[in-house]
């Protein structure tokens, strides 16, 4: 069971309180009605699925109920940092604690 730092509760909390919500920083196109089939597939189906640093969304669903983002190493499962929804994508290098 992972231990996840909720940026809103500012505390490490057990994974049981959280729900993973997939890859982060995939914004719903403003003009979604107009985009092409290819663009829609990219937006809705295609994922980075990186081996290494992953930018992902979590919801503290059984805690403060907020969605937030995390940077995690998908090989070690270690979190490098978590940050609030809407904050811009930080640049972190593997191994370094942000």
């Amino acid at each position: 069971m992972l231990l996840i730092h909720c940026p809103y509760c500012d505390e490490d909390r057990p994974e049981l309180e959280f729900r993973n919500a997939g890859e982060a920083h995939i914004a719903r196109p403003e003009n979604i009605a107009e985009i092409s089939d290819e663009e829609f597939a990219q937006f809705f189906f295609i994922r980075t699925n990186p081996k290494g640093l992953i930018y992902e969304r979590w919801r503290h669903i059984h805690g403060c109920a907020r969605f937030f983002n995390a940077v995690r190493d998908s090989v070690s499962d270690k979190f490098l940092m978590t940050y609030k929804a809407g904050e811009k994508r930080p640049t972190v290098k593997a191994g370094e604690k942000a």
Partner: protein
Amino acid sequence: MTAAFRTTAAGRLKGAKPVKISFDGASYAALEGDTLASALLANGVHLMGRSFKYHRPRGVLSAGAEEPNALVGIHRDAARKTPNVRATVQEVYDGLTAVSQNRWPSLAFDVGAVNDIASPMFSAGFYYKTFMWPKAAWKSVYEPTIRASAGLGVAPDKPDPDHYASRYAHCDVLVLGGGAAGLSAALAAAETGARVIIADEQPAVGGALRFETGSTIDSAAGWDWAQATAVKLAAMDNVRVLTRTTAFGYYAQNMVGLVERVSDHLADPGHDLPRERLWQVRAKRVIIATGAIERHMVFDGNDKPGVMLASAGRTYLNHFGVLVGKNVGVFTASDSAYAAAIDLKQAGASIAAIVDLRDNPAGPLIDQARALGIEILSGRTLVRASGNLRVASMTVRATSGGPERTIPVDALLMSAGWTPSVHLFSQSRGKVAFDSATRRFLPGDYAQDCVSVGACSGTDTLADTVKDAVAAGEKAAKAAGLAKTVGTKVKAETSESWAGGMVGAAPGAGPDTTGKAFVDFQNDVTAKDIRLAVREGMRSIEHVKRFTTNGMATDQGKTSNIHGLAIAAEALGKEMPEVGLTTFRAPYTPVTFGSLVNHSKGRLFDPTRRTPFHAQEEKLGAVFEDVGQWKRAWYYPRAGEDMHAAVNRECATVRKAAGIFDASTLGKIEVVGPDAAKFMELMYTNPWEKLESGRCRYGIMLREDGFIYDDGVVGRLAADRFHVTTTTGGAARVMNHMEDYLQTEFPHLDVWLTSISEQWAVIAVQGPKSRDIIAPLVEGIDMSDGAMPHMSVREGKICGVPTRLFRMSFTGERGFEINVPADYAAAVWDAVWAQGQKHGACAYGTEAMHVLRAEKGYIIVGQDTDGTVTPQDAGLDWAVGKKKTDFVGIRGLKRPDLVAKGRKQLVGLRTKDPKVVLEEGAQIVADPKQPIPMKMLGHVTSSYWSENCGRSIALGVVTGGFERMGQTLYVPMPDKVIEVEVVGQVFFDEKGERLHG
């Protein structure tokens, strides 16, 4: 009477209470504090089990958790039968009943032992090479035979009456292992004030001090110091000392799983004591102090009962006061076995000889052994141990070869040195490093906030161990945020060292030899088998392991892994690390399912959700169905009615008079804020901005991919307030879906969502009499058609309590849904029921609800749709706002395959024979005569007998269904083909007049 091999010369059970135990029906005297193994050995019983493949007679190898041989069944009573229990771990209690396993008819005479004679045929992996001809014989003969011979013990055949407890715990420093290292580390950490948990698998702390009687710590005997330290620790309120507690798994971010055996050692645990307790500990720092496990020597006959690890023989003597033999041989490659020989000699056993692979062993222990007149045969190897059900002799020759000499023995102690227990370190995903000097694997790079101390990190002497451990304890506490250090001091001395030893087959069990030199005892893997695996091209240790099953028995290779690796490496001509080390997988020792399940069984397996009307419905004789976690009233049979009759009556009554239905399980969400309508526009396909306060609308929610996700009636209570309903199954899902969009895509909107599913209990009153029934109970609401038309909502009071009263219908009749605060629900139901009786109303359940809505062609999301259906497919195109420029799913809907011709569309199905009711899930074809595989056009999604229509009705999805109106299609069943006509979705009151009439 005391047992024959119990000595007064040593041991710690003096004065312990005598108890009686039984093994395979024979009764034996034992002492409290014994393990089953020590008790049987005290009675001269060495034969305790049979091996897996060859059914060879086996005794104890060890005195601990690494035991591969002495596995028995423990039978408390008919329901409390536990297979594969290690006799070396099971503590005795008065009346303990144990039975041997994997033998027939008896342990001493086992027919299965014929496998041992035929063993040349049963080489490693032989089964992959045969049993293939004739093909048919595999299923009928070979496989049943193979399976019949599988397994050791017998699985219980009754539900487990015991209960198990669970505890989450958190600490600064978790110490795994209660030997000298663990205790020193725990003490140092605890004295800084850190929150400390220390766990040890034995009934008492002490670890190797249990048998290492030569050591002193803080000028006390090592064992006594350990017990005193445990008492001191337990008295500190920042410390928890857990004995009989095994750390079985090391998980991410310092979560460690411990299982505590609470009552398996008690004669009468009583009712409240759990059998075991699962601890899930989250620690800031972990100190691994798991010690080392002695290796056996790999030579022909090393599995004979009476042949055991030197430390085991020493434990039985120094702790349990049991002599494992009267004339004992020793075979070693290091010093530590000498200590065993010395202890046994001093306790009155004669030592036949110490066979030492080394040419010139030297040191205080060797001198002491000589001084005691023990014959030391150095530079010699042991080529064979002989004996049938017990070792009778050992055959010795020079390591270089030459003449053999056979020496009679009744027990044989062996030591190939010590293997650091890196299991938990490895589970923590740390990388072990090979120390080529000592040819052992030690903790290398750490992956988590933990450290290994003592023998498990390769420290060979007690003095260094406690020194390192104290430092580690203080460091861990500091790292966990404890500032003060008190400079804990622990000082230890001993003349013993765990250095030295050898890995692999002993001289005399080399590649050219034919005897059975066991590497893995339980799975009967010999040195020969390992070499065969290499010969067959297995170059990775993982392949060798899987091909030979070395290390895959219940002991998980605690004694065999390193030997196996060394023999494979030798055969490949490589160094051990080049062949690899099998990674250690949790659990460290087997863990009872029950302890992992603990409370989550029976009523706590999964929550059972009941509505506030449940008691009322039970009174009315409702039969309930499971809908997700909910119990919903399914139908209300009256005397003499079966389900069919009850449902028919309920359906007819609703349309004739009225019906009362519990709709409480539907999800409800209150959407509040100035941008509420804007938000609704985005989440649903329908338009909402123009919906007036006090009015309702049926809404459809899509996923971004355009498929129907949920639906429900939404009431607008005010400009800035909507009362949204969802499907029962969708309640949580929809809430999360809405929050996701609100928080991450549309955070600029001023709106909040609150689940009110359980705030409001809902009574649906449906039917021509519905208004007459409710009106008398309602205050402050004009229920006339003019003031309150179909699809409207009002707030007022009913039975004097607040209500949100909806006029809506899922039956096609005039209907109302009364929302009341849940704690008032029962009272309101009773009042409505009393009124209903005056008008001939009845209660109806979910089955009648399904029939009634199907008569009207109303869909049920999840039954008539399945996640691949669009609003157009379902005939709900009208509910998609054509002028809208955005809503979730708007783009997905336009994808090529979703607008393509020939999609499956929801239509009505009318059987040619009105009496025939289609089976839900049945498939639909155009040509029933076509050969298999048939081209299927779709399937029946809903199908019922409709009392109101006087015939069967059905809905189904059919390829191009809307263009097939009037067509005849076919539903092929196993026994017959059913003819159906494609019709519209509505079977009853097509004009919909009854909604208002």
